[in-house]
């Protein structure tokens, strides 16, 4: 069964900490995505990557960065966590163009910044 694995289900961090959220897929997918999901706002795209070492900003990249050193791994980095980054973070991957293939999602990481 194909899988997208997010390293942590729940995470509590302090304001100002550097936070790494990891996502690994075992499907040899080209494209990977990071979203955050908030009540009343839905899923919003933070960053995506279409190849190793390539990245593109999504709709809300401020306060975040990403890293994709290997095809299977896509990391989201919060350089200095703030309370407004408390959210559910979802990673997704796609074999090709998302409009043609859709996404496979990870189970999400619920991050609380205190």
């Amino acid at each position, binding site marked *: 069964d194909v899988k*997208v694995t997010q390293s942590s289900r729940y995470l509590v961090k302090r304001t100002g900490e550097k936070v790494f959220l990891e996502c690994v897929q075992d499907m040899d997918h*080209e*494209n990977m*995505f990071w*979203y955050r999901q908030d009540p*009343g*706002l*839905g*899923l*919003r*795209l933070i960053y*995506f990557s*279409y190849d190793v070492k390539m990245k*593109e900003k*999504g709709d809300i990249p401020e306060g975040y960065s990403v890293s994709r050193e290997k095809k299977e791994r896509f990391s989201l980095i919060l350089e200095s966590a703030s309370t407004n980054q408390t959210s559910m973070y*979802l990673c997704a991957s*796609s074999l090709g*163009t*998302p*409009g*043609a293939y*859709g*996404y*496979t*999602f*990870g*189970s*999400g990481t619920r991050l609380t910044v205190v």
Partner: protein
Amino acid sequence: EDKVVQSPLSLVVHEGDTVTLNCSYEVTNFRSLLWYKQEKKAPTFLFMLTSSGIEKKSGRLSSILDKKELFSILNITATQTGDSAIYLCAVGSGGGADGLTFGKGTHLIIQP
């Protein structure tokens, strides 16, 4: 800017009822519309719709797309408590790696 609007945002019904969830969209270069179900974990894929007027079915769930009026509906008949979830509508556009654009979701609660 691509836009996806779902309605209602929340819905409470009794087991056995039929529900209809709505999704309208405004996108440039439409490619597909997708429905996902999200319980307490990863959203799971339900349907991908690309052609107008063709109904997709899976058990008690069905969905149809109207590309002229720019909307889709998701129907669930004979609802069960296990249908309680957030239902997400997303639209894919373009031919590159651009991400899907999601609506805010419909939170469906089925009461016994």
